[in-house]
């Protein structure tokens, strides 16, 4: 009789254990899905825009670095100098996280101020525009 009792108890505990494990597994999957969804919904790339320091010299070539926080490459990088000339764009190769653009600003008899901007685009979203002020010295 004891043996029967013990066996019954073991069986019930085993069932409870199995039930608990399955509930835990479902819960875990749901949590990870939620976190994945949250990650996907929030995966708008952030553009990192680096411009040269200080006032720039007209007619001199400078590099402007545009990067992204996104890992959903390949990426497209945009750079708008802000002086009315065309926007430049780079279609990334592979998973490059940044590209360098080159630009020379024209000169005037007076100092000019421009707003250069950059954006990046991955396979899912496009980033917000990031702008930086550029000052070009007079001749």
């Amino acid at each position, binding site marked *: 009789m004891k043996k029967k009792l013990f066996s019954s108890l073991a069986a019930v505990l085993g069932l409870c254990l199995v039930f608990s494990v399955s509930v835990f597994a479902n819960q875990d999957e749901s949590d990870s899905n939620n976190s994945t969804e949250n990650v996907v919904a929030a995966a708008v790339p952030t553009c990192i825009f680096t411009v040269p320091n200080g006032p720039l010299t007209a*007619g001199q070539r400078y590099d402007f670095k545009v990067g992204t926080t996104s890992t959903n490459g390949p990426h497209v990088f945009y750079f708008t100098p802000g002086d009315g000339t*065309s*926007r430049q764009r*780079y279609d990334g190769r592979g998973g490059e996280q940044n590209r360098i653009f080159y630009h*020379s600003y*024209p000169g005037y008899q007076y100092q000019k101020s421009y707003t250069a901007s950059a954006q990046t685009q991955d396979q899912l979203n496009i980033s*917000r525009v990031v702008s930086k002020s550029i000052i070009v010295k007079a001749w």
Partner: protein
Amino acid sequence: MKITLSKKRKIMQLIFLLFIIFILLSCSMFSLNSANKTIQQDIYDFSRGDYDILLRPRNSQTPIEKKLGLVEENYLGVGDGGISIEQWESVKNREDVEVAAPVAAIGLYTASAINYSLPERGDSVRYTVKYSTTDGVNTYDLGETYTAYSFLDPNRFSDYSTITDDSLVNVFWGEYPSFLFPLTYHQVVAIDVEEEKKLTGEDYSKLEVSSSGLNPDFDEIPILGLKDANVPLKASIKIENIDLSEDDIRELKHKYKIDSDNGVGFEALSYRDKELHTQLMKEMAEKTSISTEIYELDFSKAISPFYDNYLYADKDYHLLNYEEHPTGEEMWGTIDSGSQKTYYSVGPVNYQFSGNEIFVKQIGKDEKSDIPLYRDIQKEINFVTEGPNVIEGEGLYFKHVGYFEVDQHEEELAASPLGIYGIHPTYLAKDKETLLQPTSLPGSFITTPAHGLISINWAERLKTDTPIDAIRVRVADISGYDKSAADKIKNMAAEFESEGFTVDIVAGASNQSLTINVEGIGEVIQPWTTLGAADTILKSWDISKIILVTFFMMVSLVYIIFSFSNLIKSRRNDELLLMSFGWKKEHIKRLRFNEWSLILGSPFMLAFIMMLVASFIMKETLLIISLVIVFIIVCLSMFLIEKVHKLNVKQEYSPARNGTITWKNTWYYRSHITFSMFQTCIMTIVSIFLTLVMVLQEKQTTQTTLGIYVHGQMEWFYSVLLIFLYSLTILTLIESLLSLWQQRSDEINTFHHIGWNKKQLYSFYLKEVALWSGISVFIGVLISVISYQILFGRIEDSLIWVGGIAVMLFTIILLVSLFVLSNVLHKSINLGYKKVR
């Protein structure tokens, strides 16, 4: 023993001929009726195009439209507007309107300016680039030549140094030898996505997708480009290897104060010192060329209007677009979002008339390229910029979001053209292979289909408060063009007209080609559209049908009367003989009835069986009904002929007193030839009058594609009926002549025995034929000419044709007569010899 008074051979001949007549008459009645049905059905199906009514602002009709009732194929691609969005929506919301699709011509725009890249070169190279455009006949240089240099000069930024024209700074790099894509202007039209989809079945939903945009300060306007449209632009690229050593480079750097590693490079010298830059360009131009390569890049094969993705040439200098040919390598490029700050509005072409000819004259030339201008063009401004800043207006740019296509309806009969999708080419009249097109700049006499489509939501912003040029209305609850549908359309048209619109009913419209003399090019064939072709074709068919059916029945009936008359005449003596043997009248009547039952009944039964089978196969009971009607008419005719002959049993003909022997013989034997004369007269009338009527109607109807199609459908029927008609006439002629000359066989023998040769015999008898057939033909010509003159007017232009046809008919009659006479002479003479023996 069964007695028959008519010869067996004669009976068989009559049975055969009556059988043919029964079939012919029944089939002709059926074919006429079914041909008529076919034509009505074809018009009903084809004449309704994609829409029924065109609404335009008041006084929209151009002078050529008022004069000729024609509009250009893409007539809605140009316009100043005049209908507001509210007006359009009120039309759209009507219950009797199924579709109200607006069109607003926005103007000629260029795409967002991009560059194109050539393959990287590791040597010292001079690039010289020139552009040209073409209208299909003439090629025009587009002004400036662009020069750039690239040579190896490793520095912090790049492996290369570059020297360029001012416009290529920040565009041309050693790694990406790039040049700016010249501006080309294309027709942009605004449509409503939903209504246009109802009309064309195409999905334009991409026009309403908004994105965050690449320029937050500008409005982004989605635009669809026409997939197969042409960008008529070519670039001539000359690439020269130049003699430039490292020492030369060092010397240049020293001379022009270049410090590449610190960013003070050759490429932006013009930004630092313009005079120095000019001097440098002159010095570089003098560098010796070691080798030269010349390439031609044809943009028309690589891209379509408003393409704004990457563009590059492969290692063989074939231009490729990135969408269709993505590379595995990274791409660099430029795009200018300020390209839509200006655009061109164009006026209509001023067509001039001289008699029946249409002219288009040049009104000027483009200053730089000498491209001729055929219409007024006005440069318009959307916004003004100073550097990067918009100082006037609001910035906007076109974002290329995809393509639209136009179905190639090669055999489309009913055009009711949508006004912006016409792709039928304009070509030289003297060479159909030379197709014409607008050049890359505005001012062409050709209005292209819309090369770019945007949403109607932008029309007020880009144009005026009343931006819409036309509304294409499809009437609800009708499925084709018949009388009731036409009445409904007309009533709606009247209502719209009272609201102030210019209204055109396009149902039944059809394409038409127009020959236009264009100054500087020559005669061109251009696609236009007529309105209201369906009614014309219906009327045309009725007249021809009535004439042909009437004459054909007359000819058939005359032949039957002629045959029966001969039958009765040939039996008369034999019946008298039988009466002399003691036969009673009832027996003779019964004999006659039996013979005629055989003669009539046999072909009727055979024809009936044939028609029954045909009716069963074709599922047309009209065939049987036609046959029965024909049979009844024939029986009645026989009955009447018999009665007439009873009353005129003895008929004596007195000879003519005056005239030649030919005339006297003709007069004496007139009873034999009366029927044939009548048939000949009808045949002449049909040949001349009906032909003239058909030619006149054909001119009026086959000028349109629909007309050509419907007229083509009628051709087979005309041919069949005319063949039948001529066959019967010839049959009657042959029968008449046989009867006449067989009766005169003794006379023929007598002439032969007294020494007449064949030539004299032919001459004697054929003169008679010539006389009476000549009179018949002449009477037929007179009736035809007078009738045509009274009913349709001028016939002077066609008198030569009338004469020609008459002579041809006369000749045919003589030839047939000659053939019959030769047989008769041969038999008569041989028989004469037998009798003598």
